[in-house]
């Protein structure tokens, strides 16, 4: 093999620790059975964060409303299970497709204009959906949320148990599959073209990349995956409420991604784990004023920069 082939391949070869982490993750429901619900929760949020990474990390689109697709997936899966068919995998497929369609429809809005425009459009769409879900309360349960979503067994065999073990395995398995898919995507020419668009949209156009088409495609894919995560959320918890569309959710997942690092898929997972851990710790100390501490953390993180913050030995130095 020529040196070029070797170099090109090296960037994407799986590293040993990636296998190790995934094996550990998949064993968690067995190792920590009492924390199965937490495991599902973190896994689902990690998947949500990874979908945002596609949009933010790889394509450079600042979105404050990614929860729009998470929420759509959640309600789609919940309504599907309640009124049509309680099979989880079918419901998941429906949630993914519905979110993908929404993503495609909204994608023209993020193509042109400044960062502020994109911020506003993404934020606006999430707010609109939240309002819609609120007002259409005869379908969605409004402010009370959609309750009593009973799921059938996964693959016809594995019932969702009260302990949450099935849910944890379900979430982990689906997330692993999607992760593998995402991995392929980001190392494909498509994935590299996204980075090119992010780095220098002008030049990307100048080498023949159809920028608008690529961005619409990635936005649709990211919406689909966010919807997948939302669908799993509704399925594993048995209900869907308005906060799935909330600004809090969009902001939290953005923060998770920034903590974990954008532009490398693991950032979503790492960030989700770190964020949730942080949350648990701080909430145990000062349950009411979590907002203050997370705010302070954000301010410091942004002032100092993620690279420096994670390397305490550089704190004394001037950069």
């Amino acid at each position: 093999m020529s040196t070029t082939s070797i170099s090109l391949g090296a960037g994407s070869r799986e590293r040993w620790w990636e296998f190790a982490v995934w094996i550990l993750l998949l064993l968690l429901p067995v190792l920590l059975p009492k924390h199965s619900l937490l495991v599902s929760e973190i896994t689902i949020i990690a998947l949500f964060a990874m979908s945002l990474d596609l949009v933010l990390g790889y394509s450079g689109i600042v979105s404050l409303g990614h929860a729009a697709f998470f929420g759509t997936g959640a309600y789609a899966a919940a309504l599907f299970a309640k009124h049509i068919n309680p099979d989880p995998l079918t419901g998941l497929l429906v949630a993914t497709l519905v979110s993908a369609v929404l993503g495609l429809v909204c994608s023209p809005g993020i193509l042109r204009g400044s960062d502020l425009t994109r911020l506003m459009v993404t934020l606006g769409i999430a707010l609109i959906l939240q309002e819609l879900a609120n007002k259409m309360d005869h379908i969605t349960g409004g402010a009370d949320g959609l309750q009593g979503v009973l799921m059938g067994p996964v693959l016809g065999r594995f019932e969702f148990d009260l302990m949450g073990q099935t849910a944890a395995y379900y979430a982990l398995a689906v997330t692993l599959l999607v992760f593998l898919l995402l991995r392929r995507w980001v190392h494909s020419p498509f994935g590299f073209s996204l980075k090119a668009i992010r780095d220098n949209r002008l030049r990307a156009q100048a080498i023949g990349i159809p920028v608008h088409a690529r961005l619409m495609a990635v936005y649709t894919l990211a919406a689909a995956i966010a919807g997948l995560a939302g669908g799993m959320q509704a399925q594993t918890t048995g209900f869907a409420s308005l906060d799935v569309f909330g600004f809090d959710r969009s902001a939290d997942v953005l923060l998770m991604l920034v903590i974990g690092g954008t532009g490398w898929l693991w950032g979503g997972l790492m960030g989700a784990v770190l964020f949730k851990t942080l949350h648990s710790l701080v909430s145990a100390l000062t349950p009411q004023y979590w907002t203050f501490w997370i705010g302070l953390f954000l301010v410091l993180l942004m002032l100092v920069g993620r690279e420096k913050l994670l390397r305490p030995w550089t704190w004394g130095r001037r950069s």
Partner: protein
Amino acid sequence: MSEDTVLSCTGLSKKFGGITATDNVSLKLQRGARHALIGPNGAGKTTLINLLTGMLTPTAGRIELLGVDISRLAPHQRVQRGLVRTFQINQLFDSLTPLQTLAMTVSQQLGLGASLWYHLGNDRRVADRCEQLLNQFHLSEVMDQPTTQLAYGKRRLLEMAIALACEPRVLLLDEPVAGVPAGEREELLQTVANLPADVSVLLIEHDMDLVFSFAKRMTVLVNGAVLTEGSPDEIAADPRVREVYLGHGEAHG
């Protein structure tokens, strides 16, 4: 129109409010051309390139590439048809290595650009073409370095390599040696001289050495309009051209 004309523009104009940046410019590029576009600063040379490539929309006029009217096509569509440019200020992809940049560009050229499934380096054709380009542009030793760490001269070479990776029929070079330190110029000048013979090249440059050794035809642009056009000897002898430059660089005879 001669069969041999690969790129032409007719009556191309661009007005910004009250300012006329490009004034009724007509230009023809033959197959295998080595055509230089010169003129004082602010003459509108880069604006013309931007109009030809579709970055700017003309107020009037039309552009034809290989006999097809491309005046309405988007920039990326023009590139797909073979009209490629380089930039005066390097426009590179900072987070990619030279190898990745070229591989992605070549993949796009081969029609694999939208592929989500296969891996960037898998196709032999991509790897081979990258190797060719890296050698041709003296970038092999730095192919895995992040673009941000490259020396300026190497970055300039990469700038051109990217354009060549697009398999251009017509290549528009916007001041390729601008700002390149003396030690790295030779590499770059050699590469410009060795461009494939069937690629038609339009060169914008202020370095008169390069212009006169490279060009077979020249167009002089002043205040957005064509002053004159002809062979290097004709241009060098033209008193109006000398006047326009007012002692900037010597016209070689």
